[in-house]
């Protein structure tokens, strides 16, 4: 079974440019999460999709960040325009949603390798 895949693995862009990160979750996983780790800091939650709907976007830093998950499959995270402080590693994770079947159930989140974004 394929894991969570992220593209690109690295991206170096200039300040003011636009970058789009992509995440392909594990097939059948309704939950998709974006996280970010700025150098030296903890991994921080950005947002959570359930299928194509944004369940929680409380971690999005500002309106320069736009996440989409059209059709409930892959997701994109666009940064426009990029600033120096956006540099970091962006992780995507996915998990099954067993809520409908079993009620509250704790499921494991599987992570991608991350995209290292450097804004210069």
């Amino acid at each position, binding site marked *: 079974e394929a894991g969570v895949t992220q593209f690109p693995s690295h991206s170096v862009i200039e300040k003011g440019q636009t970058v789009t990160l992509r995440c392909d979750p594990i097939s059948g996983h309704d*939950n998709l999460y974006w996280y970010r780790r700025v150098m*030296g*800091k903890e*991994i921080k939650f950005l947002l*959570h999709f359930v299928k194509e709907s944004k369940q929680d976007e409380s971690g999005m830093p500002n309106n320069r960040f736009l996440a989409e998950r059209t059709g409930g499959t892959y997701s994109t995270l666009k940064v426009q325009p990029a600033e120096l402080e956006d540099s970091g590693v962006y992780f995507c994770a996915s998990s099954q*949603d067993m809520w409908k079947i079993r009620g509250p159930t704790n499921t494991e*989140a599987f992570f991608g390798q991350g995209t290292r974004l450097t804004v210069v």
Partner: protein
Amino acid sequence: AQSVSQHNHHVILSEAASLELGCNYSYGGTVNLFWYVQYPGQHLQLLLKYFSGDPLVKGIKGFEAEFIKSKFSFNLRKPSVQWSDTAEYFCAVNAPQQAGTALIFGKGTTLSVSS
């Protein structure tokens, strides 16, 4: 607000030494607890998790962790480390009240094991 504190930023050990990485969390309700590991060049992998039941949980590669509710702690242990355990370790929590809640991570601990 929920938070996770990992006590050690960088731990250096020789092979066969015992390991204990500290993790404390701040949250007023029931929590799920996790340890993730990231080996150099690889993705984050789940090492072990605690949802309920026996507070001593065993994970992959000989790791275990003990949930002590009164201390809000979930320390990771391994009796004898190997060079291949060199990695970054993250403690994380989430709340089980609803399906699919996001993880809150600690800052991570880098473990370097010398052969």
